């Protein structure tokens, strides 16, 4: 039986005012930090992800923007000889959801930090983390958690063991579920199954401070991941004193969502009562080279639709609407 739920929610007066207020406040925050707004077309004519909403315009297959990052990357890679360093965006995206109750149309605000290959990515990662630390206050969100991670902590060992294709996908899905016992099942018969499962169990520990990184000394891949561990520890230590009141900083070493896209640092904002993350992002150095440009990039997006749901279910988490 097909379930028809309101996939394309109409936002009425109060919700519209709240979305507009959040959008303006976040864009101002980004513009104040030298990010410049770009609005790529809502209609896509290039190859699209399976999750994109597609339809025929007469005999031409077109789709609706499903993700800002990719739309912007295609735009910049085709039109710019040099990367625009700081870019902001705001507006709707349309994505077929995996859960039937999730809306297809969602409003997002975000930013991208694009660099030449020779520029220091750590500076950009730090800049983005600092910006995301300022987001909760901008939204009037009183309490939340910012999780920092690094996709390479998992990707590196998988690549070193030459685990790829369906096996890598199954093992990653298991770690995404925080189920190291499933990682071993997924790699059954592979000579590195025990090693990878041991590593996964350490990554899947409850998100915390530096203790999780210290525990990685027991990983079979300690030497391989040492640079990422050191970089993450330094970033955490540098950000900890800068975290504003109400924002708890944690390391989440098992953040492997979007692993086929992210290549390094990851960021994710959570709050009690939210069924999904409120903001997410990270480093994705593979996208621009795929489009023919030797650039590297990172960014994050704030999911205003999720925030709107949270504000409705947990109004006490927010200050009065701006």
């Amino acid at each position, binding site marked *: 039986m097909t379930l028809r739920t309101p996939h394309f929610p109409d936002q009425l007066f109060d919700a519209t005012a709240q979305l507009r207020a959040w959008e303006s406040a976040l864009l101002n925050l980004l513009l104040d930090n030298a990010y410049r707004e770009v609005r790529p077309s809502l209609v896509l004519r290039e190859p699209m992800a399976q999750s994109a909403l597609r339809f025929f315009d007469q005999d031409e297959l077109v789709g609706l923007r499903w993700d800002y990052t990719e739309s912007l990357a295609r735009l910049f890679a085709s039109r710019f000889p040099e990367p625009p360093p700081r870019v902001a965006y705001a507006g709707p995206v349309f994505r077929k959801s995996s859960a039937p*109750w999730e809306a297809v149309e969602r409003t997002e605000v975000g930013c991208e930090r694009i660099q030449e290959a020779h520029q220091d990515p750590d500076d950009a990662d730090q800049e983005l983390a600092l910006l995301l630390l300022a987001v909760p206050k901008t939204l009037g969100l009183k309490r939340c958690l910012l999780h920092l991670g690094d996709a390479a902590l998992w990707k590196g060992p998988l690549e070193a063991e030459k685990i790829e294709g369906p096996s890598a996908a199954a093992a990653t899905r298991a770690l995404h579920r*925080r189920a190291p016992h499933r990682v071993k099942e997924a790699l059954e018969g592979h000579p590195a199954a025990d090693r990878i499962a041991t590593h996964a169990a350490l990554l899947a520990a409850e998100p915390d401070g530096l203790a999780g990184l210290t525990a990685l000394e027991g990983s079979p891949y300690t030497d391989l991941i040492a640079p990422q561990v050191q970089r993450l520890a330094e970033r955490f230590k540098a950000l900890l004193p800068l975290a504003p009141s109400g924002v708890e900083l944690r390391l989440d070493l098992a953040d492997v969502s979007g692993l086929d896209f992210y290549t390094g640092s990851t960021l994710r904002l*959570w*709050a*009690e*009562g939210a*069924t999904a993350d409120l903001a997410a992002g990270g480093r994705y150095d593979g996208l621009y080279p795929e489009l023919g440009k030797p650039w590297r990039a990172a960014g994050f997006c704030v999911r205003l639709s999720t925030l709107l749901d949270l504000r409705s279910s947990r109004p006490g988490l927010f200050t009065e609407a701006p």
Partner: protein
Amino acid sequence: MTLLIALPKGRLGDEAFARLRGTPYELDVAALKGRALQVPTATPGVEALLLKGADLPRYVAGGVAALGVVGSDTLDEEDADLLELADLGFGACRLSLCAKAGVSLDALRAKAHLRLATKFTAATSAWLESQDLAAELVPLQSSVELAPLLGLADAIVDLVQTGTTLQAHGLVELAVLARTSARLVAGRGAYLGDPARLGPLSRALTDALRA
């Protein structure tokens, strides 16, 4: 705010209730006898929500219940975005391909039009793909053992615990697709957004249920 733990009704739930007896999460016996679906536990502010197994992942993923106990077979079928925090070990079964005695796996492989009856269509499809096999799936909700006996299907994929039911119907196991057991699950947002409450509770529940 009351924290809800979703527990399955039926055999797996009965075993979970028994394991929780004498722990801080023991279910209120009087409420259980009264057929209530939301049952207090011995810990104030923590209540159990009694649900049909197939519905349970949705309640947890939707943020209604913070934690839940569910069979890994159900979890794989529903494919909800949940964290699977622990393999609790109990309720262990095999998800197996079974056919009438005398029918071999090779004979099934050789069939031009293979029909498999099952409640576990996702797991069966994945196994067929891994075996490079094609089959017509006949979705059934219960009494699956009847399907090969009455000619509705050539074989079945079903949970086998002791094998007694299979034997009673003259069926035999030909292949084990997966080993299943009870798992402690959490809503991704609930667990990652409120670790101060959910972390200690999930550890305590794991200890209580694994005992």
